[in-house]
């Protein structure tokens, strides 16, 4: 017993130093040396300034204005937001696209709160896209467009979702639809090795490319 205690105390100190400091610090050094950009968060720059991470989804909504042109706020004093038609929209987020305070929505399959939220998302999507895609009905709205993701910052939307939004983007940005579809294809991350995972369109990268080619006046 006494031997066990002495041995354990020494082991605790040695293992904490070895696996708690030496290992992560050496790995940090090596990772920074070999994959500097990836290790630092895959940051994306525009005009020399960081505007995001290609792995982290962003908010492309805008404040809703009231009659007097002031931003509307909800009961908690937070500004009310709606999709900005000038941009491709990310998936809805339960965390307002926070990349430093993350949580799941944790709404179960039979929760009324989930039904209400999904209904609101569906109505908003139809209201936004229907004018540009007149054939669109609830049956044509992709499921990723109306459900919140797990991370709250899902960088991707489905290809179907992007193609529907393309009609709106082409109209409001006065861009040829064919060109917008090409941009979508260019910013689609396919399955890894051709088989793993699901393809998705990277919204931030797509919007960056879009804004470069067809800037807002």
């Amino acid at each position, binding site marked *: 017993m006494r031997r*066990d*205690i002495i*041995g*354990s105390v*020494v082991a*605790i100190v040695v293992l904490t130093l070895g696996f*708690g400091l030496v290992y*992560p*610090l050496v790995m940090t050094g090596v*990772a*920074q040396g*070999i994959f500097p950009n990836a*290790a630092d*968060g*895959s*940051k994306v720059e525009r005009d020399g300034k960081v*505007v*995001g991470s290609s*792995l*982290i989804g*962003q*908010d*492309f909504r805008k404040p809703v204005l009231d009659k007097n042109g002031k931003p509307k706020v909800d009961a908690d004093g937070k500004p009310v937001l709606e999709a900005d038609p000038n941009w491709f929209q990310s*998936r809805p987020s339960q965390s307002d696209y*926070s*990349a*430093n*305070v*993350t*949580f*799941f929505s*944790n*709404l*179960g*399959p*039979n*929760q009324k709160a989930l*039904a209400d939220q*999904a209904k609101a998302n*569906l109505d908003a999507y139809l209201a936004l896209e229907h004018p540009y895609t007149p054939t669109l009905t*609830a049956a*044509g709205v992709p*499921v990723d467009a109306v*459900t*919140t*993701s*797990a*991370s*709250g910052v*899902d960088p*991707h939307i*489905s290809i179907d979702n992007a193609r529907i939004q393309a009609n709106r983007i082409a109209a409001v940005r006065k861009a040829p639809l064919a060109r917008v579809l090409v941009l979508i294809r260019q910013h689609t991350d396919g*399955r*890894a*090795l051709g*088989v*793993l*995972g*699901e393809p998705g369109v990277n919204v*931030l990268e797509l919007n960056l490319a879009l804004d470069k080619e067809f800037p807002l006046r």
Partner: protein
Amino acid sequence: MTWQGWLQILIYVAVLTALTPLLGGYMARVYMGRRVVVERALGPVERLFYRAVRTNPSREQNWKQYGTTVLVFSALFWLALYAILRLQGSLPFNPLRFGAAPWNVTFNTTSSFITNTNWQYYGGETTMSQLAQMAGLAVQNFVSAAVGMAVLAAVIRGFARRDTDRLGNFWVDLTRTLLYILLPLSIIGTLVLVSQGVVQTLTSSVDFTGLHGFAQSLALGPVASQIAIKQLGTNGGGFFNVNSAFPFENATQFSNFVEMLFILLIPAAATYQYGKMIGRQRQGWALYVAMLVMFAIGIGNAYFQETRATPALTAAGVHATVGHGSSLGNLQDKEQRFGIANTALWATATTDASNGSVNGSHEAFTGFGGLTPLTNLMTGEVIFGGVGSGLYGMLMLVVLTVFLGGLMVGRTPEYLGKKIQAREVKIVAIGTLYMPVVVLIAAALAIATPAGKKSIFDPGPQGFSETIYAYTSQVNNNGSAFAGYTGFVQPNAPGNKGAMGVTFADLLGGGAMLIGRFIPLLAALAVAGSLARKRPAPAGPGTFRTDSPIFLVLLIGVALVVAALSFLPALALGPIVQGLTHQLF
């Protein structure tokens, strides 16, 4: 369901099966004291460590001594981890100046990481300093995993040896596990993950204005080095609150595959290691097949159910199953890049193994889909199971099955030629039946008392599912959750200011994890200690073969029947009711 989805699941199984003999053979060499490749570099470190902890590596321990060392080591490490977590506010590597979490949450967290559970009531990026993550929690990812694997090695020796009471030297098994198995695999894993975009830096956050004018703040840290071992060691405790759903913890479809593979890699390889160490490879493969069959049932159900819509989505008018692509179905709280198949696969693997990491929310699963993770937990984490603990748990079930088989044919039960007698069967009964008893009592307390109900998030039967999941997960040292269930209330401001633990849930869960770790661990060592003394009899024509299909059917039956008898009423009140109704709550 799509063929692409099934193809990915098949590839996963194929790669896992191919790696099992490779890694398993290597692990057997490590525990049989043979020289392994890495020893050339790390041999001096190994020998230095033995001198530091004052052990003679050639002196072996009997089961009581081995168990005592494990308990003393774990208890003292518990105190050390508790101290680090409580003192993080005054320690270095704390760039966001987090204060400590309250005592009750810290009790839960400490117990959670010492027991290889990694149940998390806290959100990593809003609670823990980088020092607490690296030198506190991630150390336990290595150490608690290595403790389980060391104990497994000792238990296997008990099955393999004869006429002795010696099972091995804990310090030797611990050290060789850490240096020759976990460290090399973690280094490879870290580099693969970073190459995909999982971050590894000492910077804690980057603030900027996003493309559309919204401020965003990226939480960063030494993530990849922690995530590699978190997956390998069936720990599961994420750096971030949403675990491997967060892109900085699981960046791409490829990193997702690697992380999923790491969940089952070591537990699967342990079956081959077992076959090699007892000198009967077929016995090892037999256990692998039994585990794989139960795994297949789980993924089949989870994938099928998650491609369907939930009552809530249907009520909202969402057509979840119409359209192109293979991410159709219940995509709520799931990531586009993983889709349905990979989220269902992850959920199955992580609850088969006692890993508990997630790449989507289990709470948002359909009623019947949620049955897969929950029933996986309820089989006692033996479908591959935790590193070490999974196979020694399975070996206990094997002994039980042999005993039942012996009763049926009216012969003295034998396993590997050794007689299974009253003492072993008694210990095994305690080591397997304690689990449903503790789970059901804890869940009953939590659902029936006002103090327990404070932790529930969703109203209706989902709240019951949250509760039963929480205690099943903690007793079985898994760590995944229906994550609405809470034991820690954090106000908006990060940094633990004004944060409060829910004492009832924290202490009940913490206690449950400690019981769930050490009772089966000691039971397995005790059985091994008693088997090591026995002399195997040669197999005769009447011997009940334990590598035959009929035995596997019996073994799987025992695992499922024990779980079903214990938990069916509880399941009926939660997920089954939800799966059958379209009512909203």
